[in-house]
């Protein structure tokens, strides 16, 4: 998995490429928690290049959502592939996360 960080005027975009699972979720956890702890409370996670996510990866996204919501910030996801969207649906994530189809669309909400 690769993680890319891009700062825009509206938010920080975190791009995930590859598989997010037990072998690497700690990298995403470290990145997101660092941002949130440094009061970066507007984060967009671009999942368009993420092709697999296990429960361990979902756990980090839920932890980040809870933490940033407590800070009255915004944590948004975009670009879910079909198989990832299905996992999000099964996990009850589609009703708790704000999810957009593309980064361009997601950036408008910040």
């Amino acid at each position, binding site marked *: 998995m690769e993680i890319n960080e891009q700062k825009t005027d509206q938010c920080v975009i975190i791009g995930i490429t590859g598989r997010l*699972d*037990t072998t690497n979720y700690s990298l995403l956890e470290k990145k997101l928690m660092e941002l949130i702890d440094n009061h970066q409370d507007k984060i967009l996670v671009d999942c368009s290049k993420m092709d697999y996510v*296990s429960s*361990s990866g979902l*756990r980090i996204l*839920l932890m980040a959502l809870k933490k940033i919501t407590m800070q009255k910030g915004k944590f948004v996801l975009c670009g879910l592939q079909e198989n990832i969207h*299905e996992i999000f649906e*099964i996990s*009850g994530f589609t009703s*708790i996360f704000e999810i957009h189809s593309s980064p361009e669309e997601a950036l408008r909400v910040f």
Partner: protein
Amino acid sequence: MVNYIHFTDPNSEEMVRVLEQIPRCPGTCFFMDINRSTDMKYQGGLKDWGRKLNNTFNNLLYSNNFQQHIVKGIGDEMMLFIPDEVLQKKSSNNTCFALLEDIYAALFLIKNHPDQSLFLNCKVAIHYCTEVHNITFFDGADDYYGRDIDLTARLMSKSIENRIVLSEMFYMKVINDLINMGLPVETGCMSRVSERYVENFRGVPVSTAFRVIDVQ
């Protein structure tokens, strides 16, 4: 591959010969049970508890591709078994540590989901089995029998809502995985593992060591 055992003669020598030749099938066994599912059936109709069972089974199984490892379900409890040879062939998540982390995460997601009306909390027991055989006594079924499967079921008696009970055998497999990967032994949910407990379980002639991890 499953060995179907079916001999009409109770004294069959052929049956004894066949049984003696069946190899062991080492692997990881886990039992997962949904909490308070019996109470729930007295409190609501099928549309309520059926929905929650559907959601919970899906959440536990599909996020981690565990559905292919279900051996059987009895009521609201499931038995899963992953033979070593199957686990090792996976391209990733192919360690006992990965199994433990994903099970922990699945329980965490249910416990911490903001909408508590969707899922039901669960309890789990995991054991690394060596005394186990891939056999069935029922035509067309795939099953695993052996004293380590029975021990996994016994370990469930020590689990409660949002708890994973792991046998010392499984715990040591996880520790070995972490050492082999060059990671600290307290990585991930292993930072929450309890001290070692030892108990005698019904029908098991030797004491059994185990630990627990309570989901945060």
